[in-house]
């Protein structure tokens, strides 16, 4: 493409973005001549270049806009909403043409004659208006083109009429934002007067400097206006240049390479013991570090780049919805890596639209609720804990956690039984599940059932987190937490087999080294599925060697087992590695798409010693090993395993050789107790366990009341009265521990969730075949329900339940 056209496109795109903002500002401050001038200039430039490059349609369109703008600028017309709409539409059309030019190098055939006609009509009204205005009574002097209208407005305002007072007020608001410096620099006000004004302010005068100066009589209000309006133009000098992002990328690569070379050189210098060389290398060391820091900095961009695009979105969306919304942004100078800024653009826009569409109520409803008619959406950016935070808050109706839950259940995303037991915050965060929308109606803005899940995925893709908080009637806050840069991340490097791997620090919980003896107790491995008992929790254990099918041989016969506990999608997993190397800042490089199919690596990195390490995608690794995240597992359960999800089950043997299974994720710990540690309390068994009094229930008793009665009479397992009992500590949905006494723990099985056969009795979700044995899959929530009811359920219930569950 022609270099000239390219330049024109980049320049215009930036200018148009600014236009959006300026128009929105202008609507709030219709008399601002500086803004009008700037808008006019932009359109004028585009028009001029179009004519030069031969884009006639674009030229005609911008010409119409320019003419209208010149009338506005000269004050022959006031900016009405209709006018602003038309102009914004023109901006959008221009943008469309520009995109067309970018992709096809021609301006396209979009017909804008209607819009041009509209713009012309508005412009003619302007003519009429000035005619009318110059007739009797008004203080407007002869309408000369050169006379700036802003002054006229002020004159009329000071002279009479209550309505224009508003204009005067905004003027003073404008003054408020400026400092005294401009007055002096312009040379129109003596320094002493400004100093005096500043002192008066310090002494408690609430007025603005401009106002004080006017009251001191050293300057007129008009002069104040002129000085202040000219100020921004005077100060905007370009101290920046445009750089191709690819060039920065290349520079970043070269600097990384330089860092590696420096590391090697440092080592060599140390070995050589030569003083001069050492001193020089240390100098190089320092410069390299600084250089690296600075190159990284070039990729950082203030988040205001994103904020600047938002007012237009708020204006358009709220207008479509018939709502009044004010946007407040804070922390626009907070910096973020360019690629990340790009990545959060869509999610943030989406959230903003959601807030306006679903969050903020109609003016009437707001008034009825005792709120200001105008809704508020606040966006705040700040750095905290090495991360970039973005809060998006509205003061709207809030989200009803119950309704979110209902919807999720209706759409079959969550099983009703487990959904009821979620906390409010958990219910609320179900909104991030794919396919969920609580909007009563589908608008063209939002509510199509795609959205929040996409927001979450996008944020998580860049290593961030999204969290929702909401108070009914008060509003909703969405919290995004994003790493500052993707350019480098701290990572732990580990060795497994012949290779070095990197684990992002963000996924790391802790590292544990255990000796073989302890390992025997803490690690149980059955049927290729391992668990690691760790501080009272049961973690799934993955051996990296096995997962990646790394060749044996180089394995060090080590008595110590190294485990790295990582966090992924709300769960913790222990990874067994050969050895732990170190922590390094690494530069993530994308892997060839040919490796994407493996889906276990998040990229590759060149380490300090020049070696290449693959960066492990922990979430994918856990998924591959059959540990589906909690939410997905729930949904799989809801569909009774119709999806081919992998389930990890704890297998339990009954006294008569029957087999049962429960999802491993419900298991907190596996324990062995002395029979004697069971105590009686109010006719039930309890146990002192980790400082709590925890109920002890026999699984068999819970499942089959008739037999339990018989057994209770005989005393529980009389033959084992003095021996040990096996127990599974489980958490109920209400988060209380329960010790489930079982006959025998058989092990763990991992299997693809197959179709369940209908349940055999109450408390069982269905039967399935595990290791060629018929096994009952327990419905934990239902079992606990019975526990709460005091084991009163009649055996008849079994049949009814089975029908109600509608399984299979």
């Amino acid at each position, binding site marked *: 493409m022609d270099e000239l056209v390219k330049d024109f496109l980049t320049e215009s795109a930036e200018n148009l973005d600014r236009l959006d903002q300026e128009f929105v500002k202008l609507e709030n401050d219709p008399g601002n001549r500086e803004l009008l001038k700037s808008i006019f200039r932009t359109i004028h430039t585009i028009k001029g270049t179009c004519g030069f490059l031969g884009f006639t349609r674009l030229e005609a369109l911008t010409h119409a806009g320019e003419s209208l703008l010149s009338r506005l600028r000269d004050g022959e017309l006031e900016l009405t909403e209709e006018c602003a709409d038309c102009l914004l539409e023109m901006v959008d059309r221009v943008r469309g043409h520009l995109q067309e030019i970018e992709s096809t190098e021609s301006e396209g055939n979009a017909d804008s004659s209607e819009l041009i006609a509209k713009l012309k009509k508005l412009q003619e009204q302007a003519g009429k208006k000035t005619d009318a205005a110059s007739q009797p009574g008004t203080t407007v002097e002869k309408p000369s083109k050169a006379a700036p209208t802003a002054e006229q407005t002020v004159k009329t305002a000071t002279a009479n009429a209550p309505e224009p007072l508003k204009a005067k007020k905004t003027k003073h608001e404008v003054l408020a934002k400026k400092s005294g410096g401009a007055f002096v620099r312009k040379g129109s006000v003596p320094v002493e007067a400004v100093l005096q004004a500043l002192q008066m302010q310090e002494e408690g005068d609430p007025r603005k400097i401009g106002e004080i100066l006017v009251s001191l009589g050293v300057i007129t209000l008009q002069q104040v206006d002129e000085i202040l309006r000219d100020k921004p133009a005077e100060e905007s000098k370009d101290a920046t240049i445009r750089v191709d992002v690819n060039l920065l990328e290349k520079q970043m690569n070269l600097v990384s390479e330089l860092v590696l070379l420096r590391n090697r050189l440092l080592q060599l210098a140390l070995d050589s013991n030569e003083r001069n060389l050492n001193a020089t290398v240390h100098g190089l060391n320092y410069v390299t570090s600084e250089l690296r820091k600075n190159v990284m900095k070039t990729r950082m961009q203030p988040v205001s780049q994103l904020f600047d695009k938002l007012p237009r979105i708020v204006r358009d969306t709220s207008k479509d919805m018939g709502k009044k919304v004010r946007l407040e942004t804070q922390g626009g100078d907070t910096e973020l890596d360019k690629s990340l800024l790009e990545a959060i653009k869509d999610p943030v826009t989406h959230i903003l639209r959601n807030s306006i569409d679903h969050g903020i109520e109609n003016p009437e409803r707001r008034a009825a609720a005792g709120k200001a008619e105008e809704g508020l959406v606040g966006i705040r950016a700040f750095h905290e804990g090495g991360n970039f935070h973005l809060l998006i808050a509205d003061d709207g109706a809030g989200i009803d956690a119950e309704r979110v839950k209902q919807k999720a259940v209706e759409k079959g995303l969550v099983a009703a039984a487990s959904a009821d037991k979620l906390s409010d915050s958990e219910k609320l965060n179900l909104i991030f599940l794919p396919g969920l929308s609580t909007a009563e109606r589908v608008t063209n803005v939002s509510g199509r059932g795609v959205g929040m899940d996409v927001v979450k995925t996008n944020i998580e893709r860049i290593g961030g987190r999204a969290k929702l908080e909401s108070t009914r009637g008060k509003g909703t806050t969405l919290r995004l937490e994003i790493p500052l840069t993707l350019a480098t991340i701290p990572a732990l490097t580990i060795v497994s087999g012949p290779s070095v791997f990197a684990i992002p620090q963000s996924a790391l919980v802790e590292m544990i080294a255990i000796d073989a003896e302890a390992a025997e107790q803490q690690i149980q491995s059955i049927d290729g599925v391992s668990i690691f008992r760790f501080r009272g929790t049961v973690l799934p254990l993955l051996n990296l060697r096995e997962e*990646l099918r790394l060749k044996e041989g180089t394995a060090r016969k080590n008595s110590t087992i190294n485990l790295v506990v990582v966090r992924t999608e709300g769960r913790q997993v222990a990874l067994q590695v050969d050895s732990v190397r170190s922590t390094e800042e690494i530069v993530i490089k994308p892997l060839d798409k040919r490796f994407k199919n493996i889906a276990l690596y998040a990229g590759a990195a*060149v380490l300090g010693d020049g070696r290449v390490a693959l960066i492990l995608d922990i979430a994918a690794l856990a998924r591959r090993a059959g540990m589906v995240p909690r939410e997905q597992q729930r949904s799989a359960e809801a569909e009774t395993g119709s999806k081919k999800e992998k389930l990890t089950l704890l297998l339990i043997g009954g006294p008569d050789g029957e087999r049962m299974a429960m999802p491993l994720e419900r298991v907190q710990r596996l324990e062995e107790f002395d029979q004697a540690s069971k105590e009686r309390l109010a006719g039930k068994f309890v146990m002192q366990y980790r400082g709590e009094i925890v109920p002890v229930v026999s699984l068999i008793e819970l499942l089959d009341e008739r037999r339990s009665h018989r057994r209770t009479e005989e005393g529980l397992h009389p033959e084992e009265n003095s021996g040990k009992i096996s127990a599974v500590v489980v958490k109920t949905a209400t988060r209380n521990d329960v010790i489930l006494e079982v006959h025998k723990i058989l092990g763990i099985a991992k299997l693809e969730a197959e179709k369940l056969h209908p349940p055999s009795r109450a408390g069982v979700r269905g039967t399935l075949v595990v290791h060629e044995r018929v096994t009952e899959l327990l419905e934990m929530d239902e079992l606990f329900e019975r526990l709460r009811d005091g084991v009163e359920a009649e055996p008849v219930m079994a049949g009814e339940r089975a029908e109600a569950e509608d399984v299979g």
Partner: protein
Amino acid sequence: MSANQKYATFYLNDICFGVPIEKVQEVMEFQEITAVPLCPPVLSGIINLRGQIITTIDLNTRLDLPASHSGNQSMMIVVRTSEGPMNLVVDKIGNVMDVDTELFEKPTETLKPGVRMATTHVCKLEGRLLLVLDTEKIIQLEKWGQQSGS
């Protein structure tokens, strides 16, 4: 119409192959390859080329030829492709040859299917064949998937 074209040549299992010289970014001695576990066998892994991560293809496997025995004596050719630089592992590097394109013939049916697939032309030189390879075909992913069955 006669024209001369320069080819960088190399050997796999004593067969002489060539790629257009302008496709070659650099030739280097064998360096350590980082294996990528679970990847198809045709991919040897990745290498660090001055800070850039470059995918490495085992050309013998790619062309269905027996594995080479040259080990660390192997050489690497980094070729420019539509998807950026790719590293090819070959047995031995040959000369740069100036070949008259009039000598080009279509690949014969007698070539092994794996080789024929990626060969654009065959050229008879003094007592020896030069097989001209299409680098774009070599790097095509879909074919690999089918080949390696993963």
